[in-house]
């Protein structure tokens, strides 16, 4: 058989069953899946081996949170405060803004062992610390980029540049969606996102795998509401006639794509009814709303610049965490929640205080809520930034980007509970043991979904591509 580009086998061919050799029985479910914008083409919907995780919620703390101040205590820094690092450590290292001779800066926050497992957390994140016994903490993360955008793309898509499919797109490509009324891959944002949609792109995968960004205010999906003056009945009458016209055309042209369009309109009509229900929090108990901190007052937060709106981001984050749970309940496969900005070159003290206040409680609530509802086992929660921050000072009150050793948290979905993996050196500068690269994180996430990162491939531009590019190994030590 000729080598070919997988894109040449279109959904159309899958629908007609002509190019793929799929049996007629598969067609019905494929059709349904197509309407959920995501038939599973990558691994036949079953995965390569039994899955632990059915869904994932990826909390992307964009900008580079300071692991030195949050997750990875380094008492030695206090002793060496104000001194540079040994040159042997910093030669060959690149930094975005500081010189390699910058001075060590200890964390100003107290760390304590938490949970039965005795995991260290700083006082900035008391709620998350309360989840210690649910978490795996990786303290030996590495990435390849010390700049934001390539770092974002590497974490979102496994590649430092534009154009590759994102994690959620790969998972959906592998497993399809279980939701008939909602997209299988949803993105929620609190604050601006560098690179925008390229972080949830389908890349070269078919477009039905792209993440759909839901707004937490107003219409959750672009044009979900009918325009003013168009009632549900008016819309129904219109769709009935449209369906009839399209069916006549389908009979004449015999184009299966028209049938798909008729069904897409029906799905849209159902979404118009169902998506608002997703956003209607009326059924949530007062306790749940309070746990997530939905009505907290952030009016005292001072914007640092006009273009950012931390108040808006703060207010939406709690809701986005709750929405993420509601989506997982409804079969959404992959939810990414962005929160930013954690880029604290200066204003570290204030910035961390605000951001931690915003995210600590709702993320902890999400994990506890999932556990209470029996969803944590099948839902992988990942909390990560594109890199961490230096143990070296930038100015009086800041830290620079640090890709060489940082921390990431995981919970549920088949990862160990109350477990610390890997370690950074005593300054928190380099990985000391069990390095985990972003590719390894991706390989492990796919593994938890029952997908082999080496086999989940897509052929284009003359070769097979995968999420992990040409690297990645599953971190078996963190699997439960």
């Amino acid at each position, binding site marked *: 058989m*000729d080598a*070919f*580009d997988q894109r*040449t086998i*279109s*959904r159309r061919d899958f629908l007609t069953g*002509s*190019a793929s050799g799929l049996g007629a029985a598969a067609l019905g479910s494929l059709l349904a899946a197509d309407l959920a*914008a995501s038939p599973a083409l990558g691994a036949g919907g079953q995965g390569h081996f039994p899955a632990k995780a059915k869904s994932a919620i990826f909390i992307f703390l964009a900008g580079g949170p300071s692991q030195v101040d949050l997750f990875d205590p380094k008492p030695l820094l206090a002793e060496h405060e104000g001194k540079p690092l040994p040159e042997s450590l910093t030669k060959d290292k*690149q930094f*975005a*803004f500081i010189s390699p001779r910058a001075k060590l800066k200890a964390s100003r926050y107290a760390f304590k062992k938490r949970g039965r497992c005795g995991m260290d957390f700083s006082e900035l994140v008391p709620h998350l610390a309360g989840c210690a016994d649910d978490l795996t903490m990786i303290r030996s993360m590495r990435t390849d980029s010390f*700049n*934001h*955008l390539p770092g974002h793309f590497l974490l979102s898509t496994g590649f430092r540049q*534009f*154009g590759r499919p994102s994690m959620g797109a790969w998972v959906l490509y592998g497993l399809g969606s279980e939701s008939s009324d909602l997209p299988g891959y949803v993105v929620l944002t609190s604050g*601006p996102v560098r*690179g*925008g*949609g*390229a972080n949830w792109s389908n890349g070269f995968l*078919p477009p039905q795998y792209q993440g*759909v960004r839901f707004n937490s205010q107003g219409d959750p*999906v*672009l*044009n979900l509401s*009918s*325009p*003013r*003056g*168009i*009632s549900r*009945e*008016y819309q129904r*009458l*219109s769709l009935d006639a*449209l369906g009839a*016209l*399209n069916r*006549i055309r*389908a009979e004449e*042209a*015999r184009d299966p*794509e028209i049938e*798909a*369009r008729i069904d*897409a*309109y029906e*799905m*849209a009509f159902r*979404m118009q009814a169902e998506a608002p229900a997703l956003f209607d929090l009326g059924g949530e108990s007062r306790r749940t709303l309070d746990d997530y901190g939905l009505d907290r007052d952030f009016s005292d937060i*001072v*914007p640092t*610049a*006009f273009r950012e709106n931390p108040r808006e981001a703060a207010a939406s984050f709690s809701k986005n965490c709750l929405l993420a749970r509601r989506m997982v309940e409804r079969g959404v496969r992959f939810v990414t929640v962005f929160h930013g900005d954690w880029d604290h070159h200066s204003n570290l003290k204030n910035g961390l205080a605000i951001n931690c206040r915003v995210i600590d409680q709702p993320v902890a609530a999400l994990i506890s809520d999932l556990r209470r509802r029996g969803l944590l086992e099948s839902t992988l929660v990942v909390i990560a930034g594109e890199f961490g921050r230096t143990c070296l000072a930038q100015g009086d009150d800041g830290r620079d980007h640090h890709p060489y050793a940082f921390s990431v948290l995981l919970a549920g979905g088949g990862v160990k509970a109350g477990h610390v993996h890997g370690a950074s050196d005593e300054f928190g500068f380099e990985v000391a043991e069990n390095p985990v690269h972003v590719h390894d994180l991706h390989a492990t996430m796919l593994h938890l979904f029952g997908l082999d990162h080496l086999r989940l491939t897509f052929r*284009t*531009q*003359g*070769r097979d591509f995968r999420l992990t590019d040409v690297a990645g190994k599953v971190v078996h030590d963190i699997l439960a």
Partner: protein
Amino acid sequence: MRVPLAMCLALAWSLTGLALGAAAGDDPVDYAGSIKPILARRCLGCHGPEKQKAGLRLDARKLALKGGDSGPAIVPGKAAESAVLERIVTSDASIRMPLQKPALPAAEIDLLRRWIDQGATWPETESGRRASSHWSFRPIANPELPTVQNASWPRDPIDRFVLAGLEPLGIAPAREADQPTLLRRLSLDLTGLLPTPEEVAAFLADPGPNAYEKAVDRLLASPAFGERWAGYWLDLARYADSDGFEQDDPRPFAYRWRDWVINAINTDIPFDRFTIEQIAGDLLPSATEDQILATGFHRNTPADREGGIDKEDARRRSIVDRVNTVGTVWLGLTVGCAECHSHKFDPISADEYYSLYAFFNDETDDVDRPTTAVRNDLERHALAVKAFEERVARLAEQVEKAPPEQKPKLQTALERVKKRGPPELKAELAVLGALNAPRRTHVHKGGNYKNEGRAVEPATPAVLPPLALRDPGRSRADRLDLAYWLVDPSNPLPARVEANRIWQNLFGEGLVTTPDDFGSQGARPGRPELLDHLARRLVQGRWSRKKLVRAIVCSSAYRQASRRRPEIDARDPLNRLIARQNRYRLDAEIVRDITLQAAGLLNPRVGGPSMRPPVPASFKSFAFQFRWATDPPEEVHRRAMYIFLQRNMVFPTLPVFDRPDTNVTCVKRERSNTPLQALILLNDPEELEAARALALRTFSAATRSIDAGLDELSRICLGAGPPPRERTVLAGLYAELRNRSAAAPSDAEALLAGAAFPPGRPADAAAWVGVCRVMLNTDAFVSRE
């Protein structure tokens, strides 16, 4: 569909005089062209640089001869004693290579056998001019016109090639599409616009034998032709109006290059000149401003201006993007694979990659060339100054209202904005220019520029014809030499690649379905002789694209109906035989254009600065840098190709209809079909505005009689009055919506939104808007049939 290897007769570059490896007789088998692809595809997965099962590695001669755990794998000159061959041909499936995969085709086994018998010639380094028997590297053939039985169907040689593929299978071509469908298809393909009811009427009324050709010529001469076909080129050129990356700054003068493309296509600048000017217009003797502007092609590369970046790394990444883009757009090759290591499948080594890179590195820099601001720019600048002033006023008000403890901080920020001042009017063209102190290029080992490998000179891949220096007195080739080389008639790739794209734009699918990969891993052309025929015609027709487009659209093959025939579908589901036209949903921009056109709202002004239509408020909440000042309605009703392409926040409805990411070159758009598209066509404010305008436009006819209204509506949208069944559905819909609107007068009023319908009949008007809205949503309206 693979070309039988027996057909790959020894064809040599006449320039090199080298004989090629091929399958016939005892012709020498060429490693790079014939053996390497087999090893790469079948063996290297387990016996290559990454894995060495049984200790065996087959990607270098020395290692292959040394063999693995069970001894030497290849004995040069003795195929019968070579373990490699033995394991491939064995009948014991449990040990046959490749393990658990189908046996190798006989033709490949034969090649391997003969290659080993001939001494397993395997260049230690794959340098020096090489030849490859891969189809796309061979010179463009001059295929003889096939004889066909049905002499009346072919109008053009193209048809003979198509028919010659059908007749042996006993398949007859599809009948010709009906006249209104044909004109609608033609108008959409050539201009991206609907034929007006008047144009349809004139076409149907023209009894002359050349009515169709006359329509073709009219459309080819329309300025909208340049817009539509520039659109395809903009995808290839990854055109955008902003930098991308973190800062994503606007490029207010990028449109000048976009307009250059529209103009070049409208004036049918030959593709060779079009190429030369874009690759190296700045190096042409006494280059005009337009020729220099053409090099803006390369400045469409996203630019990283994030603080603290490694600037040299960013510069080099943009050169990598340029090399890869040129490789894809002109050569149809995935040269980018060789950035980090020699190409695993195609004969392009890392050295050769960096030799191409050198053309864009050694003597070239990005130049922002001052130019004269035109009226457009002045107007736009005045708007920008106004927006700045408004922003300052708004911020000052915010400071005023802020609680006392926040004031100082906000005040500082305000001062910062003020200090930066209003935008300057500095008209500049982003182009390429010469560098005073030449750089040297080294191979970047593993793609890492800090890991310098061998020094390389500007040069082209050895598998392609040699590069000639235009001035033999000079020792080094430059970008202009590269440009001439690309379009030299001896170079088989650009003409094939461009002809394939033209076909793709007129059939929805190319003859080669991987337009970005004409290499060994790409799809083979469905009809190789037809592709070569087209490529040859393109070159011989002085590279005129309009001529080739005209030939194709005038062919009988193009004019076929798109209706599927189940018995043929079963044999040829992808329509590789071209036994019909294809039917597909229109591109994102065109869906919007024809909607505005049907509504009578389209502003046909060609070119000029990009515009920003209104966007939903939610759109800005995730944008890292938000600058989107909405333009006045008349401006935003221009064609969608003029919507400001802000890389990090593409106008939200377009990507839903598969407008590609503008960050990398795109040679082929996807065509998805999703509920999100339905939501846009049903509910987007712009769509409803169009439905209302279309209703207004046709309301007086509808007031005369519903039938008259439906006739007019359907003629505008689909080029013909509705057939009886559709008419019944639409009339029924009108009656039901009218009842519904009469019962809910406030809904009717809201729907009409104060539009200038004749007073006194809101229920009729609201129902008619609904009918028009349904028409704009039909699959037939958004499709090209």
